């Protein structure tokens, strides 16, 4: 009964979304205020309906209703409750429902925080979001229904993929989707502005906080996923250039470009058309990413053919959304004014150059991800595009981007002078160059990639210090008021940029100086790695809720001092009879000690992989700083001021 309620709620939600996607937009076009006013209530009702549907599916999972096909395929009675709920987004149908649900959350948030917008603008924004929702709801109801019944019901479920049974599964997908779907708000703002022909600085100001928030979620989501892979997959990698990762990385790159372009549009009125195009791109890449990951096309192009309706729907939907918005762009963009003027060298031009690099990088990732699919589909052979390709292509694109990123905040708006910039950044350049040349000698060995990485990291740090010095000149006042005098948005920018430096430093050091040993250990054996002594104390059996594990015990000491114990596990999930590794990690800022269990060899001997990963946590630390920067920017006074004004304004008669 409850699954039918969910199904029914989805059908009604589709009808409401159709109203939300048409009536307000027509109203805005014809100036009909009553029709425009439909947008807000429709969006809220739709939210409630999708909430009911999601709740019903969650209920089916929690109450182990194996007469629902999707529940039976993705859950099991032995699965702990938190994973039973998280299994909701463990498969294709449920993740689409999560998508639609999160879209309705963003939409309802827009209804609450858009009172200062003109009626027509708000109607169009909510209308566009309603249209996107129509696509997803229609997709679920026609070819991908999560509430489909299985009769007769299964005795027990087939279980959630053991790889996904991890706390990461509870947080990572919702975070990532909050990011993906959040770009739909920027997209809706852009389309609404194109429809209304009101591409002005106010439009940029309104869509900025939404875009920053979506970018923030996406950053945290990607960071969480990378960290999850690091401890779960058992060999300590943190990024694999897997198509699934690329699917989230492309919108991130486009979103990063969008944030910066929006800043110029708001402050200087320039790049309006470019900003709109980026908003369309960021959301299109999000859509593409969702479907790439969820359509099965990645495993094999032929997975598409096994379920042609689904594939066809996806293609048509993508063509309608992307093609439609690009056509609208082509039609409307030429009428956009050009805004503030600027010189060939200025903060504007530097930001634009960085934008171009980010977009080219995103396009390259797209090319590398889709190329094997196209070749295969065209019958031109099967190839693999993997980390060696992406490393070779990505580094030369990102190195200049990072270099320019550090210069940008120091350049003046409108017109900057190269000699002046060079004079201010002289010392920063010298410091980073010397560090890049000498620090590796101290750490052990030097390679061009280590040199480049260290140079960029310290270039970012040194240039950030210079930026800070100029922003907070020593004028005899105490530090704290001076720090407070600078807007939080500026601090957000500064912190996010420093985060990039921290990230690069972590990547460079761990790639350059990581050590590992693959050893066979009897209980009592000692292995030495980078000055650390790993003593193996044997294994013990551990019984989990739905798995049995062999847990290895390793004591680690450094110069005779005990520093850590590592307990890597080798689990066997009993339902699918699938082995999984769970690494034993002792994390610290200077580096991680990492152990993972291999196979049981003869006579109590085990093969064990040991790693020392210096500064690996700086990778995620850098991402966390970027996210924190986004948070600071969002808490900036000007957004709060607008809200307070709005409230004050409403109190007036």
């Amino acid at each position: 009964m409850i699954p039918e309620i969910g199904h029914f709620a989805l059908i009604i939600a589709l009808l409401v979304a159709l109203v939300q996607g048409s009536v307000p937009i027509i109203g805005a076009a014809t100036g009909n205020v009553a029709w425009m006013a439909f947008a807000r209530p429709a969006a809220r009702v739709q939210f409630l309906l999708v909430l009911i549907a999601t709740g019903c599916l969650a209920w089916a999972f929690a109450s182990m209703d194996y007469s629902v096909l999707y529940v039976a395929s993705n859950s099991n009675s032995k699965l702990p409750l938190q994973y039973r709920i998280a299994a909701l987004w463990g498969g294709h149908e449920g993740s689409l429902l999560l998508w639609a649900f999160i879209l309705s959350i963003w939409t309802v948030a827009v209804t609450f925080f858009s009172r200062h917008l003109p009626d027509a603008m708000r109607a169009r924004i909510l209308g566009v979001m309603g249209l996107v929702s129509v696509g997803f709801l229609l997709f679920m109801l026609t070819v991908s229904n999560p509430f489909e019944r299985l009769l007769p019901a299964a005795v027990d479920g087939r279980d959630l993929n053991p790889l996904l049974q991890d706390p990461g599964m509870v947080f990572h997908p919702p975070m990532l989707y909050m990011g993906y779907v959040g770009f739909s708000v920027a997209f809706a703002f852009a389309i609404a502005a194109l429809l209304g022909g009101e591409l002005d600085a106010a439009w940029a100001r309104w869509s900025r906080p939404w875009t920053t928030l979506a970018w923030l979620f996406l950053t945290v989501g990607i960071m969480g996923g990378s960290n999850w892979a690091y401890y779960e997959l058992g060999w300590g990698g943190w990024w694999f250039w897997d198509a699934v990762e690329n699917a989230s990385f492309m919108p991130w790159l486009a979103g990063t470009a969008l944030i910066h372009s929006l800043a110029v549009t708001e402050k200087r009125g320039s790049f309006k058309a470019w900003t709109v195009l980026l908003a369309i791109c960021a959301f299109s890449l999000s859509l593409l990413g969702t479907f790439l990951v969820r359509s099965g096309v990645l495993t094999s192009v032929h997975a598409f053919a096994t379920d042609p309706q689904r594939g066809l729907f996806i293609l048509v939907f993508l063509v309608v959304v992307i093609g439609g918005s690009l056509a609208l762009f082509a039609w409307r963009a030429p009428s956009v004014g050009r805004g503030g003027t600027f010189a060939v060298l200025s903060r504007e031009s530097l930001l634009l150059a960085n934008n171009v690099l980010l977009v080219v990088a995103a396009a390259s990732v797209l090319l590398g991800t889709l190329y094997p699919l196209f070749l295969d589909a065209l019958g031109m052979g099967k190839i693999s595009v993997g980390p060696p390709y992406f490393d070779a292509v990505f580094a030369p694109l990102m190195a200049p981007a990072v270099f320019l990123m550090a210069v940008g905040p120091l350049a003046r708006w409108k017109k900057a002078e190269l000699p002046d910039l060079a004079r201010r950044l002289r010392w920063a350049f010298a410091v980073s160059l010397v560090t890049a040349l000498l620090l590796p000698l101290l750490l052990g060995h030097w390679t061009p990639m280590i040199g480049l990485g260290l140079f960029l990291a310290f270039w970012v740090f040194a240039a950030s210090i210079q930026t800070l010095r100029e922003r907070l000149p020593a004028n005899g006042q105490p530090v704290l008021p001076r720090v407070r005098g600078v807007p939080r948005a500026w601090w957000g920018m500064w912190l996010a940029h420093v985060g990039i430096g921290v990230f690069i430093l972590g990547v460079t050091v761990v790639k350059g100086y990581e050590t590992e040993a693959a050893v066979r250990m009897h209980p009592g054996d000692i292995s030495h790695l980078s000055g650390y002594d790993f003593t193996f104390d044997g294994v013990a059996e551990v019984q989990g809720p739905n798995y049995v594990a062999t847990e290895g015990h390793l004591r680690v000491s450094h110069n005779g001092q005990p520093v850590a114990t590592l307990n890597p596990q080798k689990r066997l999930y009993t339902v699918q009879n699938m082995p999984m590794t769970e690494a034993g990690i002792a994390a610290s800022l200077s580096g991680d000690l990492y152990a993972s269990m291999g196979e049981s060899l003869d006579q109590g001997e085990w093969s064990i992989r040991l790693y020392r990963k210096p500064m690996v946590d700086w990778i995620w630390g850098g991402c966390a700083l970027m996210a924190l920067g986004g948070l600071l920017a969002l808490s900036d006074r000007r957004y709060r001021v607008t809200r307070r004004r709005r409230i004050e304004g409403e109190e007036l008669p």
Partner: protein
Amino acid sequence: MILLCVLTFAAMADEARPLAANPVTEVQVRRLSEELRCLVCQNQTLADSSAPLAEDLRNEIREMAAKNMSDQEIIDYLVARYGDFVRYRPPLKSSTVLLWLGPFALLAAAGVGLVVFLRRRQGQVADDPLTAEQARQVAELLNKES
């Protein structure tokens, strides 16, 4: 008996032996297996995979490495057997020209486009110096407004 105990203890507190018989060839095996695909996995390098078939293939590479075959010879052998699919670094040939040159061609095109755009814009700045002032005023008004 005591001797036996001591011997056993000594055997127990042993230095762990490396998994690989030959650490020198192991470096080569490692380097190669990071560039090669585990053919039965979803999307994993040979180095990362724990699938039995990946293990077999690593052993095969190990044997070839022990025979002093170079990286290129080993890759050629594997490509002859499994096709380009086994390589994560696609070879440069007619069907992959776009893949390898695409990003850099795009970068060059974008760079040229950017320079042309900036120069053309600057030309227009000189034509109409008033616009800059107006734009500034507009920005100021906007800032005051909120």
